[in-house]
């Protein structure tokens, strides 16, 4: 979230008023960029977590055979990746519903 498109900020000094269509286009670009950034971020996290879970212990022990991924490693990494994505989705849903419950409670 470090990048806020000043082009979309109507309060920024010097920004020109935009037509609805232009606004929509810029908003779409912003959303797509955000999505790509989120994917890259998730990839980095998944990489780190799955390395830690599947391979870090063996490498530190010295029991990992050098240079190549064994079949166990491959299977572990694939499962880890799928589970990580599933975790993200699950946590996202639970988080959203918890927030909505809280917002409903605060309004009452």
């Amino acid at each position, binding site marked *: *979230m470090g990048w*806020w498109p000043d082009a979309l*900020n109507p*309060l920024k000094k010097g920004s020109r008023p935009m037509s609805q269509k232009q606004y929509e286009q810029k908003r779409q670009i912003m959303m797509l960029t955000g999505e790509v950034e989120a994917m890259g*971020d998730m990839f980095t*996290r998944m990489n780190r*977590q799955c390395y830690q*879970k*599947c391979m870090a212990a063996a490498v530190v022990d010295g029991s990992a055979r050098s240079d190549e991924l064994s079949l166990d490693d491959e*299977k*572990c*990494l*694939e*499962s*880890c990746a*799928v*589970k*990580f994505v*599933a*975790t*993200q989705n*699950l*946590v*996202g849903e*639970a*988080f959203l519903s*918890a927030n909505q419950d809280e917002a409903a409670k605060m309004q009452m």
Partner: protein
Amino acid sequence: MSEQQRLNNAKNEIAAFGDMYNRMVKQCFEKCVEHFHDSELSLGENTCLDRCVGKYVESQQKVGEQMSKVSAQMQQQQM
């Protein structure tokens, strides 16, 4: 509050939510998912994740409450 201030507040709030979400995913994944012989989340892991999210949010709230109490006390002491 000026419009600009409200916009900044909203930005910060969204950033905070996003950060909390990322940390939560990392923690709950570390704590709940151990075995990788199967590529689907088991029932136990699912339950664990649900509970993890609930506990994480609750502990965040409690810590926030305590912190605001403590900072209010500190402000009073300074005056």
